[in-house]
Each structure stands twice: as structure tokens, then as C-alpha cells.
């Protein structure tokens, strides 16, 4: 039987290729994702290893709130360093600085690479140094700097040139004395590094007298583990002591966790593409089995059992799956760099070197590709077993439909799905409502099927939509009319073909509606809440670089500025809890001049009562934790100690500036180690205008704090919208793959349908239909199919987004907004997709040989 399957394969090269690609694209994204993330991981593991292997023991601050949360006030000070040095077995110990900062040209142009981070690093004794100068030397004086090779090349920096290094503590103008290369030859992960002398690095980073890390070398005869134990015993719990190897492993594991998000994010799109591919496999197999009824009947007549027929079809799926999966895996190897490029284009610089192809990638990709293909082909394969031997003898024998389920079976099925839905809803509140809708829909369907029991299923939606679409092009005459009729000839087939496109477009629509709503919400809530004139923010939005604490006082001295209020964000964890809460810190005396708070309990004067022990909760947090005014909670801070906070008020903030907890700015500094501000709100004196104040503010910032910039409320909102749009575009690009996969489905269905209609096409050509008219007819049919998919996708996407936001975001001030323009564009995209998909089938149809077509039975 396998030989027969193989031969069939070779005879249907085009179809095998088209369906194979439909699966291969999903597999390629999957394999590409694994390869990309493995490669990044591999590169970073190399960097960490190189950086830490020279050190016997490394001391870093304890991060009780997770690896991402770090107090800006390091617990590692000179006294701690002295204690390490005094520990027996320590040959050498040195503190180092490695803090996010900004590296700029003297003309205030950023020198970093795109969106990769920039770091301020301190010079350390040569045995701990991971960087070696390729030109010049390491810095020796406070006004000297060495920069990494990649940054120097990118901005063509020369020795002797001046640059600006800006940190939390200060902005320094320094001279380049060296160009550095990271040991081991790897690039430093795309990041830029400015190496200063230890004292200058501390000053610029705002960590005078403190270090981010201690590097320790063991004396001869002392193992790193022994030394680690001794140092551990000598130091307080506010620091972690690891061997160099342990530190590298910890950093790698940490990164792996970060990459996990990226991996999951990308894999979601791979799964979507695979689901769409499954639709196409299912459809193709269904059609080919219908077309091969006679052949299958012959096999049965010749004595093939049902099991053998089933096996032959499943084997075909298996073979196709292997073909698609291998194709996909190869594609994935090519796609990984493209994905990397995609992220670079969207502003995320992910370092990688070489291509890491793990066995896991190969296994998972092959399993996914083959599994999806075989599963999708199973239902058609089972259908093939119902072909009666009689089909071999007679023309036009239909495969008997699956016996219709009895009324009882329908009710039982409904009951089962009801139980599943209730169970899932109970498990997670958010999706419950959506599932409820699903139950209602299923209930309606059950009612319909019970009422029309005994009838075969009809696909009313296809004729209805095709009718409407056909009517739109009816002025195009007979070709459009025939296209419409042909598209509803096999409504089930058209529906499945269209459904493949529906999946992708529904997701695109869903995301687009959500994004439009989010933008509308931001616009409305910020307009309502923000009462100031200018917003001061980091020039590197989304980076770890914040606003130095000196900015707000400096801005207060600008003329026509009435007030500047600083806002900072930090996190904490309630005693006994395992998850972090987010915290906003505000300056009580000036906050309400620039921001309107909707008080549920409390008043503007509540802010003034905050002190270092009070907090304000958002209503949603208070409700979820059943907290009331007057209660006291204990919160662990990034500085690794607990503070007690008494609830003074409860507020609603739809603009989401206020977090779970709001505390005073002073407490954030003293208790949470939060030195930098996240935002400063600036208000003018009455009558002052942007034109009068903003240029003065900008001049001040540029001269003293080049890592910070000012934005009007409108500019700020525009940039938030741009950020959403960037994410949206990234998602569009990734979903485009699913749409492309569905194109192959349309092509496939059309080619198979054309094959079925060869005689008709021959007759039409014989009685004088031109090739052009035939092509036109096929194109209309394709566009109608694509638009059916598009319209269904749009409807599902819009309704889904409205349902989810209505129920999941109720009470959060979410503003619904339907991006009509985008939806219209999407319909055009669907139509265009249909047009593209029709190219090959249309040409084939037009090329039909009249005589042979008329002779074919």
C-alpha cells in the first residue's frame, strides 16, 4: 500500500507541495523561534561565563523580590568590601559598578546601538577585567573613558575624542583613551559600555561609597567553594555570595526566564499558523478523497479492508507531514535570523552569534508538523473508509454521510460541553464570560439541530455571504455570476477554505480593536487626569535609565514654572504573599497640582498625611484584598526589609499612574531604595505657554541631563500611541504568516475544484468563452471565498474584542473604539489575498485543453 501512496504523491506534486508548505510555514516559525532563543541564550551564556570565570567568588545584593527588582541603593559599601578583604583566603577583592546609563556624543546624540542598553562600568584590577583594550588603554583619570569596540565602530569614535556619560548621579564630559574588546571575542550582546575609573563611575552612577558587585580572587590553595563559605559567614543577609561559576549559571538561568516570554510570544503565532495549516490539510484531504471515491471503491472491490483504506490515507498524511515538517525545519533555520532582524527592526536588539540547533528543536518541530498533518487528515481518512465497493462500478456514487447523531447524543454532547465550560470558567474568572457566550451559542445550535433533526447540515452562511458579495459584482456579468454560483456549490468546502483565512483575520481584528480601545482609553483618561503642562521622561523610553533626582529641583528654578512634582515606581511584596505588588511614589505637596485623583475614600489632604507610614490603595486592589482605610499592611521592599503602611485612602485612577499602592516619594527613597524618578510633571504659572517654557526646559535638560527630555501632554500621548502601534505592527507581521498559510489553502481548493470542473471549462471554452473570462471567473471565485473568510474574521474579531473588554475590563474605564479604517483595510487585504491566491489556479483553468477536457469523463 505504501508504494501506492508514494506513487500517488509523485503524481500530485503540486498539491503535495502546496499542502506541504501550508504545514511547513507553521513549523518554520516554531523551529525558528527555538533556534533564535537558543542562539541568544547560548551567546549570553558565553558572555556570562567569560565575565565570571576569572572570579573565585562574587558578592551581589540580595534580590528578595525577584531577579528583576534591584534596590538602587546597593547594600555593598566600603565597610563590606573591607570585611571581605579581611576574610582569610582572599588574595584580592575589588568593588565594581555596572549600572544603566547613557552614552552620548558632545552634540547629545546617543551612541548606543538602537534599543540595546548602555552601561556605566568601573575599572577593576586587571585579573577581574573582562575587557581588554584593542587600542589605547584603560582610564586612569576621572576625565578618561574607554568604550567598547562595537560602539566605537558604530559611531566612528576615535581616541582623544570627547563624549558624555550621563548617570543617576552626574553627567560627565570625558575623553576616550581606549577602545575595548570583550574577552573571548564575543560581542557584548549588542550593549554599549563606558568604562570609567572606579571613583568616577561611582560618582556618575550615583553610588558614591557603594558598589554593584564585589569580585574576589582566592589565595592559592583555597577553592572557590571554601572561600564562598568563609565570605558568606562574614557578611549580612543583604548580599548574596556565589562562586564565579554559580554566578554565571544564575545569570544564564535568569536570562533564560526572560527569553521564555519571547519564546512563548513567538510560539503562539506558530501555533496559530499550524492550526490554519490543519484546516488546509483537512480540506485538501476531504476534497481529494471525494475525488478518489471511484479509486477507493475499486480498492474495496479488490478486497482491501476498511482498515487498509484508512491506513493508506493516514500513511499519505504521515508522508505529507514528514515532508512539511522537514521543509519547515529547514525553513526555520533560515527564518531564525529573519526573526532576529524583525525584532531589530521593531527596536529590540537581541544579540546572537551563530545558529544553535538543539535536538529538542528538531524533535518538537517534526512532531508538531507530522502530528498536525496526521490529526487533520484523520477525519477525511475515516470518511474514506465509508466508500462502498459499489463506487467503483458506478459514476457519481457519493460517500455515505456519517450517520446523524441521535437527539439523545446531541443532548449528551451539549451537557458535556456545558460541564467543561463551567469547570473552565470556575478555574479562571476572566474567560468565564466568553465561555458563557459559547454555551449560549451552543445551546442555540442544539435547539436548531433538534428542531431540524434528521436533516444534513446546511451551510447557510456561505450562500448568504456569497450571494451578497456576488450581488456587489453582478454588474461584471456572467463571470461574476458563475463565480458566485461556483463558490456556493460546495458550501462546506468553501467554508473550511475561508475559515483558514478567518482564523488569522479574526486575530488581527481582535488585536486591532484592542489596540484602538487602549489608545482611546489612554487618550481619554490621561486628558482627564493630567493637569500639568509638561511631562519629563527618560529619552530611552522602556530602558532602565530613569530621571536623576537632581532634575526636579533644577526644573523648579526655571522661570514661569509654578511646580514640578516627581513620580517614581517601585515594587514590594506583602508579608506572606509570593507575588509582587506595584507601588507609585508621589510628592504629596505638589502631586495634585498636576494630577487629578478620583477619591473613593479620602481627599487631597489625605496625600499630605501620607508621611513615611501611610499609603493610598487603588479601588481595585483594595477590593481584591478586602482592605479598608485604617488597616495596616507589612510590605517587603527591594532593600530587603519590611515597612508597615497604614491605609489612608482609596482612589480610582483609570489612567493607571497610581499602582496598587501609592506612597510618598520620601519613603520610596528611604525605604525602597528608589533614587531615580520615572516621571516629573511640570506645571506653568498662569498664562505661560509651551512656547515660552518648553525651550528653556529643553536647554537646561540638554546641558545638564541629556538622558532626559520634556514632552507636552499631546506629545506624550502620541508616543504612547506609537508604542502601541509598534507592538501592533509586530503582531501583524507575525500573524501575516497565518494569512499566507491560508492563501495556500485557497490555491489548493481552487486547483482541486478546477480539476473537478475540467469538462465545464472545456465546454465554456468551446462555445466561445475567452481565456481572460475564465481567469476572471476563477479570480472572482477566489475573492468571494477570501471575503467570506475576511468578513467572518472581522465579525468574530470585533465581537470577541468587545466581549473580552466589556467583561474582563469592566470598571477599569476602558473606552471602546472600533478602528473602522483598519477594518476596511483588512477587507481589502482579504480581497487582495484572494486575488493573489487565484493567480496560479486561474492560469491553469484558462489553459485547459478544450478537446481533452471534453473527452474526459
Amino acid at each position, binding site marked *: 500500500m505504501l508504494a501506492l501512496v508514494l506513487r500517488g504523491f509523485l503524481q500530485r506534486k503540486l498539491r503535495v507541495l502546496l499542502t506541504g508548505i501550508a504545514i511547513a510555514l507553521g513549523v518554520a516559525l516554531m523551529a525558528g523561534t527555538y533556534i533564535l532563543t537558543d542562539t541568544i541564550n547560548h551567546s549570553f551564556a558565553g558572555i556570562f561565563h567569560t565575565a565570571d570565570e576569572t572570579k573565585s567568588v562574587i558578592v551581589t545584593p540580595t534580590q528578595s523580590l525577584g531577579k528583576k527588582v534591584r534596590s538602587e541603593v546597593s547594600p555593598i559599601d566600603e565597610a563590606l568590601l573591607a570585611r571581605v578583604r579581611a576574610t582569610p583566603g582572599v588574595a584580592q577583592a575589588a568593588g565594581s559598578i555596572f549600572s544603566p546609563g547613557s552614552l552620548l556624543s558632545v552634540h547629545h546624540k546617543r551612541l548606543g546601538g538602537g534599543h540595546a542598553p548602555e552601561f556605566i562600568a568601573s575599572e577593576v584590577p586587571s585579573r577581574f577585567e573582562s575587557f581588554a583594550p584593542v587600542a589605547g588603554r584603560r582610564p586612569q583619570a576621572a576625565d578618561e573613558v574607554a568604550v567598547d569596540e562595537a560602539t566605537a565602530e558604530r559611531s566612528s569614535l576615535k581616541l582623544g575624542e570627547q563624549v558624555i556619560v550621563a548617570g543617576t548621579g552626574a553627567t560627565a564630559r570625558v575623553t576616550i583613551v581606549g577602545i575595548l574588546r570583550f574577552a573571548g571575542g564575543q560581542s557584548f550582546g549588542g550593549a554599549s559600555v563606558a568604562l570609567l575609573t572606579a571613583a568616577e563611575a561611582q560618582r556618575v552612577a550615583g553610588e558614591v561609597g557603594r558598589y554593584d558587585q564585589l569580585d574576589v580572587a582566592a589565595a592559592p590553595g583555597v577553592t572557590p567553594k571554601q572561600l564562598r563559605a568563609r565570605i558568606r559567614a562574614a557578611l549580612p543577609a543583604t548580599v548574596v555570595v556565589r562562586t564565579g561559576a554559580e554566578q554565571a549559571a544564575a545569570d544564564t538561568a535568569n536570562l533564560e526566564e526572560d527569553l521564555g516570554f519571547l519564546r512563548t510570544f513567538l510560539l503562539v503565532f506558530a501555533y496559530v499558523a499550524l492550526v490554519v495549516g490543519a484546516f488546509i490539510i483537512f480540506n485538501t484531504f476531504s476534497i481529494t478523497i471525494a475525488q478518489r471515491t471511484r479509486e477507493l471503491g475499486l480498492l474495496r472491490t479488490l478486497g482491501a479492508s476498511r482498515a487498509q483504506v484508512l491506513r493508506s490515507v493516514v500513511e499519505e498524511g504521515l508522508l505529507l507531514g514528514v515532508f512539511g515538517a522537514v521543509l519547515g525545519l529547514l525553513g526555520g533555520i533560515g527564518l531564525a535570523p529573519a526573526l532576529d532582524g524583525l525584532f531589530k527592526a521593531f527596536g529590540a536588539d537581541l544579540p546572537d552569534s551563530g545558529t544553535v540547533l538543539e535536538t529538542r528543536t528538531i524533535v518538537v518541530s517534526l512532531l508538531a508538523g507530522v502530528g498536525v498533518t496526521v490529526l487533520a487528515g484523520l477525519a477525511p481518512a475515516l470518511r474514506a473508509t465509508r466508500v462502498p465497493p459499489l463506487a467503483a462500478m458506478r459514476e457519481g456514487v457519493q460517500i455515505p454521510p456519517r450517520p446523524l447523531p441521535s437527539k439523545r447524543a446531541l443532548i449528551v454532547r451539549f451537557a458535556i460541553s456545558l460541564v467543561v465550560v463551567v469547570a473552565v470558567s470556575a478555574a479562571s474568572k476572566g474567560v468565564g464570560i466568553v465561555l458563557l457566550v459559547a454555551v449560549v451559542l451552543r445551546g442555540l445550535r442544539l435547539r436548531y439541530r433538534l428542531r431540524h433533526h434528521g436533516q444534513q447540515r446546511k451551510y447557510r452562511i456561505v450562500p448568504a455571504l456569497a450571494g451578497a458579495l456576488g450581488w456587489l459584482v453582478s454588474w461584471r456579468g456572467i463571470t461574476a455570476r*458563475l463565480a458566485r454560483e461556483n463558490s456556493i456549490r460546495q458550501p462546506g468546502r468553501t467554508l473550511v477554505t475561508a475559515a483558514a483565512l478567518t482564523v488569522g483575520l479574526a486575530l488581527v481584528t481582535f488585536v486591532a480593536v484592542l489596540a484602538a480601545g487602549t489608545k482611546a482609553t489612554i487618550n481619554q483618561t490621561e486628558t482627564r487626569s493630567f493637569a500639568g503642562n509638561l511631562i519629563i521622561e527618560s529619552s530611552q523610553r522602556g530602558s532602565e535609565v530613569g530621571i536623576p533626582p537632581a532634575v526636579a529641583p533644577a526644573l523648579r528654578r526655571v522661570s514661569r514654572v509654578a511646580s514640578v512634582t516627581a513620580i517614581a515606581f517601585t515594587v514590594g511584596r506583602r508579608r506572606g504573599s509570593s507575588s509582587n505588588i506595584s507601588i507609585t511614589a508621589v510628592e504629596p505637596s505638589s502631586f495634585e497640582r498636576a494630577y487629578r485623583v478620583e477619591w473613593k475614600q479620602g481627599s487631597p489632604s489625605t496625600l499630605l498625611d501620607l508621611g513615611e507610614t501611610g499609603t493610598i490603595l487603588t479601588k481595585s486592589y483594595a477590593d481584591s484584598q478586602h482592605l479598608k482605610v485604617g488597616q495596616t499592611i507589612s510590605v517587603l521592599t527591594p532593600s530587603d526589609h519590611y515597612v508597615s503602611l497604614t491605609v489612608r485612602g482609596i482612589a480610582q485612577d483609570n489612567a493607571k499612574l497610581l499602582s496598587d499602592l501609592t506612597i510618598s516619594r520620601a519613603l520610596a527613597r528611604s525605604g525602597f531604595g528608589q533614587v531615580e524618578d520615572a516621571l516629573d510633571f511640570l506645571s506653568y504659572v498662569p498664562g505661560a505657554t509651551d512656547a515660552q517654557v518648553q525651550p528653556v526646559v529643553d536647554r537646561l535638560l540638554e546641558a545638564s541631563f541629556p538622558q532626559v527630555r520634556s514632552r507636552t501632554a499631546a506629545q506624550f500621548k502620541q508616543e504612547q500611541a506609537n508604542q502601541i502601534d509598534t507592538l501592533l505592527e509586530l503582531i501583524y507581521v507575525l500573524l501575516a504568516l497565518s494569512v499566507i498559510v491560508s492563501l495556500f489553502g485557497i490555491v489548493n481548493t481552487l486547483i482541486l475544484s478546477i480539476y473537478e470542473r475540467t469538462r465545464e471549462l472545456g465546454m465554456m471554452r468551446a462555445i466561445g468563452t475567452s481565456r481572460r473570462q475564465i481567469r476572471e471567473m476563477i479570480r472572482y471565485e477566489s475573492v468571494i471565498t477570501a471575503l467570506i473568510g475576511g468578513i467572518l474574521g472581522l465579525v468574530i474579531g470585533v465581537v470577541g474584542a468587545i466581549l473580552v473588554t466589556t467583561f474582563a475590563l469592566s470598571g477599569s474605564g476602558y473606552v471602546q473604539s472600533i478602528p473602522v479604517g483598519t477594518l476596511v483595510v483588512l477587507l481589502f487585504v482579504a480581497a487582495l489575498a484572494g486575488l493573489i491566491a487565484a493567480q496560479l489556479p486561474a492560469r491553469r483553468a484558462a489553459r485547459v485543453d478544450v478537446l481533452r477536457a471534453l473527452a474526459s469523463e
Partner: protein
Amino acid sequence: MDATASSDGYQRIVEAEDLRRRYGEGEAAVDALAGVTVDFPAGHFAAIMGPSGSGKSTLMHILAGLDRPTSGTVRIAGVELTELDDRALTQLRRDRIGFIFQTFNLLPVLNAEENILLPLSIAGRKVDREWFDRLVDTVGIRDRLSHRPAELSGGQQQRVAVARALISRPSVVFADEPSGNLDSKASGDVLGLLRHAVDDFGQTVVMVTHDAHAASFADRLLLLADGRIVHDGDAVTAEQALDLMKSVG
């Protein structure tokens, strides 16, 4: 119509000269037509008979512009077919030729009326309602106009096909075994319709058949064997036709 008038006063609608058609190459080459010269005057009903492989279908395909001869010329209503490109040939078939097939070949997605009007729809021509009504009444399917082919009997389908072939008032109708898939009653009806089209509408009909009974409806009988015309004569009875067939084996 610019067809050339022959000496006997008829207009020759279809003229073929020394048609040869070779399939394949070298040793395996087969001459389906080995030099056929024939013409069909306007307003006549001609039947082409011959055993399987005699070349009768090939002849009809070439005369109708569906196939090209290896050598020789074909003119329809004065237009030289062998000089036309695909587009011009398509247009000629559309405007000058009507087709009736053995397997009816109606479009299943269109109803009877739409099927009849299909050639006009394709050409984008206006419907002559009077002519349409006359045709519908002649073929007798007025009460079936809104039915789709699947809802019609074989005879009804072929009558629709006849109306479709005549709707554009073609110069010539080619019928390929028009009664081949019909029972004798329906067969007689359809052939009677073709006869009627020739007698009452002055239509020119060329029919290929291996059915002697069908041939007896024609004015003229051509017999083909091994790619050559072996008999060309006036109308005959079914029995005579059968005898003629036997003679060429």
C-alpha cells in the same frame, strides 16, 4: 455573410480543403485525417458517419476550430480558421458556431434559461427576447426554464443544449453524437428539433454520429474511413445508412 457562392447557387458556410491531421511522430504517428476536402452549404443538415477511429470526430473538431489541422485549410463563413490566433478563434466560435455535445454539458449552477443564454452572456450581447421565446417554445421547455440541469431529464437537458446552440444564430451548428446519451424517444425529439432548425430557421447543421437512425434525419450523408471520405451522398434511410457502414467495416 461573406461566404463564397458555389456554382449550384448555395452559400458554402464551411469549406475544408485537403485536411490532414497527424497525431504523434515517427513510427508511432497516426494519420487521423489523410486529405479531406469537403464543404457544407447553408441551410443543410449533414451527417458524418464512420466507424471508431475513422477520423469523424477529428474532422468535426477541426471544422469547429477546436483543433488545428497538420495541413490544409478550413473556412467558416469565409474566414480562414488556420490563420486565426486563439483569441480570434474563440471569438469565432462564440459568434459563428453552435455546439451540441453528447453529454449535454450544461452548467449545473445555472438554470435552464441561464444556460440557454450563456453564449450571449459570454459575448456580452443583448438578448433578442422574441427569438428566445420562439426557441423555448420550439424545444418545448418553457415550464422548465427556472430548473437547474440536475432537475431535468436527459432529453430535456439536450433540448436546452439545442436552444443554447441556436440562441446566437450561428452560421453553423456542430452536433457531436447529440442522441448518444438518450433513449429512442428523447433521441427522436432532439433529432427532430435539429431537422426543424434546418427547415424552419434555415440553420446549417453538421452532425457526427455512429447511429444510422440519427443519420437518417440528415439531408446528406458523409462516410469516413481511415481518415478519408469514402461516401458523400444525399439523404438515406436508416437501413441504407447501416448497409453503407457495413461496407466500410
